[in-house]
């Protein structure tokens, strides 16, 4: 068992850059996922770890040994392919024995280890079958047994579950994780399925546009995405651009109090508002208007442990260049849950992420807390456990809400007005565009 070090890897095909300066470490015994949309370079990276491609620059180390330049058959890696790649002319046990016979393992031991590997995936009874006599899930498990039989240093999984139907995929996810725990093998999973990555991994590396966008635990990348690309790729988001409220214009609640030192730590030029014992920063979202011409006032808790203050060290307010030079992340439009035109932060604005499931829905006039607005239902999509509701604000802008099924005995009707509200710490600032990492 050993860890994997990816050191400053870049890969170009002709004048196309597939990966640029990817640097990461997968720890020993870790279940690590490389997640990204198709074409982000994740498969290229996996192929370089396996030795099917060589990096243009940079190095790859497995267990401290440099493997860059070594052919695949010298790397001692187990790999499971998307199409399983079982040898159709060999029986299940011959498939599993393939790597052992290549290594000239004595016959007795080959038999033993084949049985052991098949037991690990619960397919002992199928040893003499041919691959074409197996179901998709069984083939998948044979492929895993074959990869593990050679007792590799690391296990690479190239979208191994994408050819299975939804229910089987869930079962195989559990099984994969169990096998990984039992063997303790360092594992890299390549996937474009964010749910799969979140539920299986110890840590996730998110690749976008050939660069590592974020590296962190599932909780990190979902709750504290480092930039807009990650926020939009993982789960659904409402993105809200908001400008710090000018102290003089702070209407409604109590005028801005003295920042109490918070201004020194928080890089926002937003007036601090004291609310329920927390220091909140006030913003005005020009694109969300509860009434025409009346930007929605947002109160964000930038020091909240759940929030993004720690991860969000880059200061957009003082670095307007980042905001103005923010092209829409590639592929983000399709993933985004928010209206596309509504979220280009202007210079000096901050981009906030508000997860749809963080917004609460109450009967009109009954919303609670500092962030609330009335909004009318414009569309409902029922997905069983969750209701995806699109709300239009009276002035402008819209928000997507994921409400839980039991909260709505009857589906909301289009046009119906509710109160939407959310906690200050649910507003997570994100870097616009893609971030350097």
């Amino acid at each position: 068992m050993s860890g994997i070090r990816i050191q400053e890897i870049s890969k170009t095909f002709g004048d196309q850059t597939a990966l640029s300066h990817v640097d990461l470490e997968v720890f020993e015994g870790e279940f690590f996922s490389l997640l990204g949309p198709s074409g982000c370079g994740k498969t290229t990276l996996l192929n370089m770890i396996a030795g099917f491609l060589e990096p243009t620059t940079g190095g790859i180390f497995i267990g401290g040994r440099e493997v860059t330049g070594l052919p695949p058959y010298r790397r001692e890696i187990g790999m499971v392919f998307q199409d399983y790649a079982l040898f159709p002319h060999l029986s299940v046990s011959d498939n599993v024995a393939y790597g052992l016979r290549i290594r000239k393992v004595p016959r007795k031991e080959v038999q033993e280890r084949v049985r052991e590997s098949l037991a690990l995936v619960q397919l002992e009874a199928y040893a003499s079958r041919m691959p074409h006599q197996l179901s998709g899930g069984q083939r998948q498990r044979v492929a895993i047994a074959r990869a593990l039989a050679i007792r590799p240093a690391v296990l690479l999984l190239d979208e191994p579950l994408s050819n299975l139907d939804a229910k089987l995929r869930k079962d195989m996810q559990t099984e994969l994780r169990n096998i990984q725990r039992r063997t303790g093998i360092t594992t890299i999973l390549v996937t474009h399925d964010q749910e799969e990555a979140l539920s299986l991994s110890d840590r996730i590396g998110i690749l976008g546009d050939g660069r590592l966008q974020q590296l962190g635990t599932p909780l990190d990348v979902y709750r504290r995405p480092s930039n807009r690309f990650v926020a939009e790729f993982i789960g659904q988001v409402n993105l809200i651009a908001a400008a710090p409220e000018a102290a003089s214009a702070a209407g409604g609640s109590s005028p801005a109090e003295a920042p109490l030192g918070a201004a020194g730590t928080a890089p926002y030029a937003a007036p601090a508002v004291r609310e329920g014992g927390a220091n909140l920063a006030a913003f005005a979202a020009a694109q969300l208007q509860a009434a025409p011409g009346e930007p929605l006032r947002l109160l964000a808790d930038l020091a909240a442990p759940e929030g993004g203050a720690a991860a969000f060290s880059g200061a957009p307010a003082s670095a307007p260049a980042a905001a103005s030079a923010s092209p829409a992340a590639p592929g983000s439009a399709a993933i985004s849950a928010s209206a596309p035109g509504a979220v280009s932060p202007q210079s000096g604005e901050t981009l906030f992420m508000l997860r749809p499931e963080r917004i609460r829905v109450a009967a009109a006039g009954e919303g609670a807390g500092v962030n609330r607005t009335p909004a009318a239902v414009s569309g409902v999509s029922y997905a069983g456990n969750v209701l995806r509701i699109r709300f239009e604000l009276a002035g402008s802008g819209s928000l997507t809400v994921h409400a839980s099924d039991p909260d709505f005995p009857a589906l909301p009707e289009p046009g119906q007005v509710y109160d939407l509200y959310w906690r200050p710490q649910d507003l997570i600032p994100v870097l616009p565009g893609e971030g350097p990492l």
Partner: protein
Amino acid sequence: MSEQGTRRISAKRGKASAGLFQWLLLSPSLLFLTLFLLVPFVMLLVLSFRDVDSLLTVLPTYSFSQYIDVFTTPAYSRTIGSTLWMALVTTGICVLMAYPAAYLLVRTPSRGLRTFFYILLVSPLLTSVVIRTFAWIVLLAQNGLVNEVLINLHLINKPLSLLWNMNAVIIAYVQVMLPFAVLPLATSMGEIPPNLRRASMILGAGRIRTFFRVTLPLTIPGMLSGAVIVFSLAAGSYITPLLVGGRLQPLLPLAIYQQAVQVFNLPLAAAMSITLLLIVGIFVALAGWATKRWEGRMRDV
């Protein structure tokens, strides 16, 4: 009647009319094949059982005398044996040479280069058999190019007799029949999912072991279908052995021609022809059986 039942019946009727239409489309070629292949074949079969008198006049009686003649006359059985041997050697050489060629065709990434290789490969088929064979005569004759080069390099003193023997026939056959071996092989090689090679390599096998353990077994059907074509053509062709081997080579097609056109023993020529057909038929059947067995292992038939 239920709606479903009605639909099933109309579907059946549609199928029947589609079947009729297919037969209509096929009828010209079926008619042609019946008239010019099936009928002559039956006539040949009948003729091969006829007796002849000492003046080689065909008698109205039937017996196995011609077949007994074919299999008991030492000259004829030697001819059968050497025909079989020559066809097998040609097939073997073609298959051996086809593997690297097919590999090159499949693995060439550039489309243009691949097209070039294909054209190069099939170019012998695009030349007339006479021109192609005369080119071999120019090359292999006593004062031909090969002998002159060898003499000028002082590798030999006297010119080798490269022409008018079985080796010349085999060389000329390999040249023209190689594409028939390469094309089906390249097709079956191209159908191997690339991940199988990768899986083999990541499991520790280098290129050579991957070839013998994965590529070779999976291309057996393609290799066999190429072998069948080469074998049938090599066993049955007439012009190439006549031109580069001479008419005295112990080969069945030459012997048949001799009996039919020069000796004018038509029943014997017919019996030889049927024997040749049987040899090729047995080879085709064996290859077909092997292919089916092998493919049956890999998928449900």
